């Protein structure tokens, strides 16, 4: 790619990408009649909101693999989309190389879109079935560089296709002619076409079989090494996370519980939820699981519990946990935990 590098600003404490107190709520209250409720004999106007992401802050350093883990419904995909500006946040700021991007319009976002790409979970749904691989891959390049010549585009497509391990002579084929693993390679190729710096991968290997999953993870790691990419990796598969991440953020009900370097998170999880989550991973050759049992079920993000969102299921909860929202604190070298029990040294 030839055009100007977007503002090579200092990558200071804001890193490559920084989220500051980002909140994303979805209004699902529907029409006027759905919003009216009878309460104590009076008609009231009530809105229903899904509180998907609540007050999340973190910084991603250039070149790192930052993973977000959590169970279904914890807001990790919403967080990914909000980060890329697909959903505008309700409040908070998102900075890319120190520049605010959450309040930009489509035109102003364009140079950033080229630097930030996304890979989706389902390679069957994320490729247009009526476009050949060539059409799918050339579209982002032509869109971002209208002046590029047809030959250059062809060369680029061929180069990226061979990098992701799909034979360039298959460029004229349609997605249905490829297997799941090959489609995911094409999705990755599409993201790589515009030479991005930052890629958000939302469950990129969850739909794939183990032997294919290893191929795709290797491909992602190779691409990172060759191009110096920064990844934000969204997944629920903790063994994948342990393998590829530098740092891991654990989410529960739209809130960040713990953010640690991968090694220390897997060796000594601090937050009670992280402990329960890690103990539930089935490990090869480990007989009786002996996992930490959580009481109750995940509450809905519509009626968030007060205080710490986890207090209803936590074995260490005390009255303070039900009252006060725990602040994310750095407990030691780069380990950030939001938990009263950890703060009070009860665990």
């Amino acid at each position: 790619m030839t055009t100007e590098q977007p503002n090579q600003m200092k990558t200071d404490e804001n890193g490559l990408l920084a989220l500051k107190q980002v909140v994303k709520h979805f209004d699902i209250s529907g029409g006027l009649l759905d919003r009216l409720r009878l309460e104590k004999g009076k008609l009231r106007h009530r809105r229903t909101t899904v509180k998907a992401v609540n007050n999340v802050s973190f910084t991603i350093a250039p070149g790192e693999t930052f993973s977000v883990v959590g169970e279904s419904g914890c807001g990790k995909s919403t967080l990914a989309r909000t980060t890329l500006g697909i959903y505008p946040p309700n409040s908070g700021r998102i900075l890319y190389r120190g520049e605010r991007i959450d309040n930009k319009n489509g035109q102003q976002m364009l140079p950033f879109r080229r630097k930030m790409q996304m890979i989706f979970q389902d390679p069957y749904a994320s490729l247009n079935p009526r476009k050949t691989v060539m059409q799918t891959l050339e579209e982002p390049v032509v869109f971002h560089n209208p002046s590029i010549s047809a030959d250059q585009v062809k060369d680029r497509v061929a180069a990226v296709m061979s990098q992701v391990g799909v034979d360039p002579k298959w460029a004229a084929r349609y997605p249905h002619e490829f297997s799941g693993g090959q489609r995911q390679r094409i999705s990755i190729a599409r993201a790589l076409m515009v030479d991005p710096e930052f890629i958000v991968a939302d469950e990129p290997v969850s739909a794939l079989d183990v032997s294919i999953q290893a191929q795709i993870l290797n491909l992602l790691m190779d691409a990172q090494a060759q191009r110096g990419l920064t990844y934000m990796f969204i997944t629920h598969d903790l063994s994948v996370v342990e393998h590829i991440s530098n740092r891991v953020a654990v989410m529960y009900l739209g809130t960040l519980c713990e953010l640690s370097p991968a090694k220390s998170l897997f060796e000594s999880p601090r937050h009670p939820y992280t402990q329960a989550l890690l103990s539930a991973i089935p490990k090869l050759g480990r007989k009786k699981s002996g996992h930490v049992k959580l009481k109750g079920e995940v509450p809905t993000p519509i009626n968030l519990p007060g205080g710490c969102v986890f207090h209803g299921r936590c074995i260490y909860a005390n009255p303070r946990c039900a009252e006060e929202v725990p602040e994310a604190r750095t407990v030691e070298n780069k380990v950030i935990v939001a938990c009263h029990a950890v703060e009070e040294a009860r665990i």
Partner: protein
Amino acid sequence: MSHLLEVNDLEVKFGLRQGDLTAINGISFNLDKGERMGLVGESGAGKSVTGFAIINLISKPGFISGGRVIFNGQDLAALSEEAMREIRGNHISMIFQDPMMTLNPVLTIGTQMVETLQAHRRITRPEAEAIALEKLKKVQIPSPEKRLAQYPHEFSGGMRQRIVIAIALITDPEIIIADEPTTALDVTIQAEIMDLLQQLCESEDTGLILITHDLGVVSQVTEKIAVMYAGKIVESGLTDRVVNNPKHPYTQGLIKALPGSLQPGARLNQIPGMMPTLTDIPPGCAFNPRCPLCETICRNQEPPFIPVDHLTRMVACHMVKPDPSMGTR
């Protein structure tokens, strides 16, 4: 000694215009009372078809084209549909992946449980409800009396799967076939459901065939394991032994491909290529194009599935030599 369930050289084909497609190509295994077995493999290996074939639920254009499924001395593959209905759901029940698809959304949990019982036994509704209540307690559903009158949508995913397990257990079957029972669930819920399933099978002495792609789950719950590839069992044996010391190159590759067995950040060991589709299974050993040990014989001759040690390990591979103490074969 006869086993509770014996699958002998089972073969399932799907009749297509272009000719018959072999989905299961002669597999054999057995299960004793109270034994838990894992059937693992990647998508398309034939795990689910095997599960369906055991209870004779292969629907057209599929059919069982050979072999026998002997349960308590009867060949299920040859049984009439009416006689089969007596076995299915009564002596052998099945649990599926998606609990929302298994449960009827317009009937209460109670009705569905009572219906199952009444289909198999002459029993009054109050008697059936009492059994249903007892089973709901067994699967640890809180306030079961209230829950009986509720509909599936009022339960969470984990609770629904518990109900499905309760329904599978309601007739006190000898065998449960669980087809990916926790794949749709989160990891903490999965751990609870697997614990529950294992505990119930132990306390009721129920046999379990656990069909899954997740080697971690299998190694926690089962005593023995069969690894499938392209419609065949390529390796079977005691779960501990197979997982810790795989012999077939495919099993070895599968286990090495799991992240977690390596230093973080290292390249994962990948198996090149992908599983062949059923229409073009290569001649000889089906794994040969992806196999690091492949030699000429592998491309020409199908490897026999033979015992390789004294601990029930069986492997189908030309390159795996039986334990010398096994004598000459």
